[in-house]
């Protein structure tokens, strides 16, 4: 069994975090510049979240399976959790298909420097948003 007991718990954590990212100009401005619409398809437990950077402000939509995403990222909730700590070997996860990325690779790669500040944000967010029990990796 993974770290998150159910979809509701994980959804609260991840959507809350994406909303924080959306409100952090240092990261959000760069994501908005990409104009990407990214759908995260999580499993164990199942959660779907769209991060839409094509508008004036980043929109985070939980459960959106209809939006036409430019990038689809699929992974387990545990891998996602570890990723936001900066503790996933990205190359290995992609080679082993623990993370599956579909879409324009050059555009996906450009997101990496943009999201780098989030690795320190995530543990702080867990502690300050009532999810400190998940501040483990």
């Amino acid at each position, binding site marked *: 069994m993974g770290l998150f007991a159910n979809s509701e718990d994980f959804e609260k954590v991840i959507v809350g975090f994406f909303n924080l990212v959306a409100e952090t100009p240092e990261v959000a401005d760069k994501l908005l510049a990409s104009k990407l619409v990214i759908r995260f398809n999580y499993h164990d437990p199942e959660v779907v979240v769209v991060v839409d950077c094509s508008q004036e402000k980043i929109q985070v939509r939980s459960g959106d399976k209809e939006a036409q995403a430019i990038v689809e990222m699929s992974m387990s909730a545990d891998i996602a959790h570890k990723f936001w700590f900066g503790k996933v070997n990205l190359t290995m*996860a992609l080679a082993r298909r623990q993370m599956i990325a579909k879409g324009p690779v050059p555009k996906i790669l450009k997101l990496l420097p943009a999201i*780098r500040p989030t690795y320190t944000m995530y543990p702080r967010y867990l502690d300050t948003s009532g999810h400190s029990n998940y501040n483990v990796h």
Partner: protein
Amino acid sequence: MGGYAGQFLQIDLTAGTITKLPLDKAFARNHIGGLGFSAELFLEHIKNKPHFDAYAPENPFIVMTGPLTGIPLNGAARWTVCAKSPLTGFWGDANVGGYFGAELKCAGYDGMIITGAAPSPVYIYIHDELVELRDASQYWGLDTYTVNDRLLADLGVDAKHQGHTLSIGPAGEGLVRFAALIHNKGHAAGRTGLGAVWGSKKLKAIYVCGSGKVKPAHPARLKQLRGELKDLYAESIGIAAMRATGTVTHMDVGIISGDIPIKNWNQTDWDQINELGPAAIEEKIHAGHRTCFGCGVACKKDARVPGGPFKMEKGPAPEYETVAVFGTMCLNPSIESVAKANEICNRMGMDTISCGATIAFAIECFEHGLIRAADTDGLQLAWGNSEAIIALTEKIGKKEGIGAVLAEGSARAAAHFGGQAADFLTTVKGLEAPMHDPRNAHGFGLAYGVSPRGACHEASLTFEVEGGTFYLPDLPGLTAELPPGSQDRAQLNVVCQDYGMVFSHCAVFCNLGGMPLTATRTVEILNCVTGFDYTLEELLAIGRRLWLLKRGITGLFGARRKDDQLPKKLMQPLPEGPTAGSTPDMELMLAEFYKIRGLTEDGVPTPVTLAANRLEQLAELFKQA
């Protein structure tokens, strides 16, 4: 037997003779090709006089292709060179892409063994059957780009099929100990200073032009295989990244885990890192894509700096190692200056890793007062001083002033400067470490330590497997999930050495273009091209034997356990960042490794190990030593 040209050239530069030697089928089967052939031939040439200086005529220099070289296939253009290294004094080899290897095969040769030394500068001319030693006096002193252009112009070859060159620049001629061989303009056989071996032999260049074709044993099956591999390559994110931005993709990926050394290995993070990343490269210097023979991956890029102090015309762009070593290692955020440093190294014929690491070492020495401005002709060797970094690169290539000291490599330079200079070294066995931090992945530390050629991330596939670009679930002995730290890294290294010898040293696959291939696919491709019926087990036994042979040769040249240690700099835990507090447990890993590998406590293969791997000749030489 498919894939092979069927003969070698033996060229004695002292006597001025050229002999063609047939390739024996059993030899081919037992050693596959590439460094598998070269290490055998090298031992054969030195066995009667195993102690010699790297600059002595007795040092055999061997160029060798693999059975796949010249077959149009992703990641199969590479070929190898080897000799005793002037930088380390141990076994030296380098692996290079481009077109030279394929052209040599098309001319009818699997490789060449070059011995002796010419009395005056020569080049080797090869056009199919015609092989000649020719006067190179008019090219001596020229940089590699100029010699390439002049040689092709002087030969009057037509543009459609003009052949290819391999040459040294002023650094090789001047015996800079990390001099490289440059193929055409920018494919470098960089590591271990083998360009200086050519300098000592007065060999300036090789020109090769071939009109034949390399024929696989089973062409129909190969065609089918290519179709199957097409889907595999299309699905690979790693390959897509290589196509998009090349090896510099790692600037964005490696920084997350702390893999990129910064400020001569003193940091793993830097607020100006993005100035050197793929986005900055695309915006500021990118000028197109390039590839190697028959490879659709096209990971190589071109660069241009249109103006300013680092102006350069369109030419090969710096790859990841070069960007890191002249950029992050020196706290230099100017990607234009990194491109310029790359061009200088290519033209002068120098290994960018050793050159850049030696400059970072010099900057730290300068910071601590071990080098003063009076020693540098006024150059302020401060962190991030792009102009000084470029000026020092030129000085090293020309062996001018302090450049002459640094041209000896950082280990010898540390002995020259004295004091605490040795604390700033990043060398193992005298070879400057590449840009991957073992504090992030401890297996790299063991790989650097025990590699026969010194600190090297390509002497086995440890870097690829622990780093994650290769996924080899069908390779026996690999732990599915490595625990954090140093545990199980000895076994990882052993398996990755055995397989790596086959994959990138014998076959000779590219570690980038071949990244989606499983072990099963590798065996399939080798059998399809050669017509042999190798099993994976048989190939791994060949790989194991080759690793022990190379390790044994380095042992014959004097390397022992003390030479398998990481330098202080790489063992210093960092206070913060992704690798905070982490250092590889070298004692644990070495003890486990020696046991699994069958090495003595001092790190040389035991007589039992040598006998079990059909290395009796090496055992005899150890007895005599």
